[in-house]
């Protein structure tokens, strides 16, 4: 991962911005806690057509229409898509509004005493997704 981003996010960690680590396509990733809006199971997705094959559709979540994006495909971490519904989705606050990313599972949320994440965890900045 990019050292500058890692250093920046490790500094945020030290300030108490607990990350959320998750598994996707067999790889560990993490996002800074301040970007995370929610993790929720999504039972239905409306497959709104898009020229971008990673934009899977929309979900009605907490009275808002939220775009669902295949993060696994964007990252090259998972080729086959998220599989059968329901999907466990990571809702992230981005520059384009809240977006939902199907993930495999949550690994951890928060690291005790501001300790850095293990080196094999790739930290993502999804604010500009």
């Amino acid at each position, binding site marked *: 991962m990019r050292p500058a981003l890692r250093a920046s996010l490790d500094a945020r960690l030290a300030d108490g911005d607990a990350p959320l680590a998750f598994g996707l396509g067999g790889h560990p990733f993490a996002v800074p806690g301040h970007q995370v809006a929610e993790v929720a199971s999504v039972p239905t997705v*409306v*497959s*709104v*057509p*898009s*020229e*971008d094959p990673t*934009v899977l559709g*929309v979900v*009605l979540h907490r*009275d808002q*229409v*939220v*775009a669902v*994006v295949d993060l696994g495909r964007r990252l090259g971490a998972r080729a086959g898509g998220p599989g059968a519904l329901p999907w466990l989705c990571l809702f992230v606050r981005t520059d*384009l*509004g809240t*977006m939902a990313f199907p993930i495999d599972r949550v690994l951890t949320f928060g690291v005790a005493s501001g300790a850095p994440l293990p080196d094999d965890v790739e930290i993502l900045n999804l604010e500009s997704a």
Partner: protein
Amino acid sequence: MTVAERIAISSRAAPGHSSERYVLFVVGDVEYAVEAATVRRFLPPGDVSSPADLPAEASLRRIDLRRCFRVAGGPAARPMLLVTGRHGMAALLVDAILSVAPIATQAVQELPPAFGGAERHWFQGIARLADRVVVLIDVDGLLS
């Protein structure tokens, strides 16, 4: 109940609410709606056995929404909506026509910014109807 009866019942707008009437239809597993004011008529499946059966102006252009939206398969005989816009008239092939219903303007929101391709021209936005989501077609954008 026939489609015409369902349309007659569901097209009664709720009083005191700002709304537009839309024709609701299905393509694939997604529900769409197009402003009723743009719809000239609809043709049930089987009414059109050849392009010659279409009104002359509509036979000029036929848009298969399954193909447009990259949805595979579908029924062999499908209904058509004849729509008009700034760019002329066209027949939209859909899977099924559901009803005509008022959609409150406050129920409509823009397409999320993640949708950045041609779909921004095809769709006016997304409407929330009770617990479901309907995609609003922009006839002018689709026909352009």
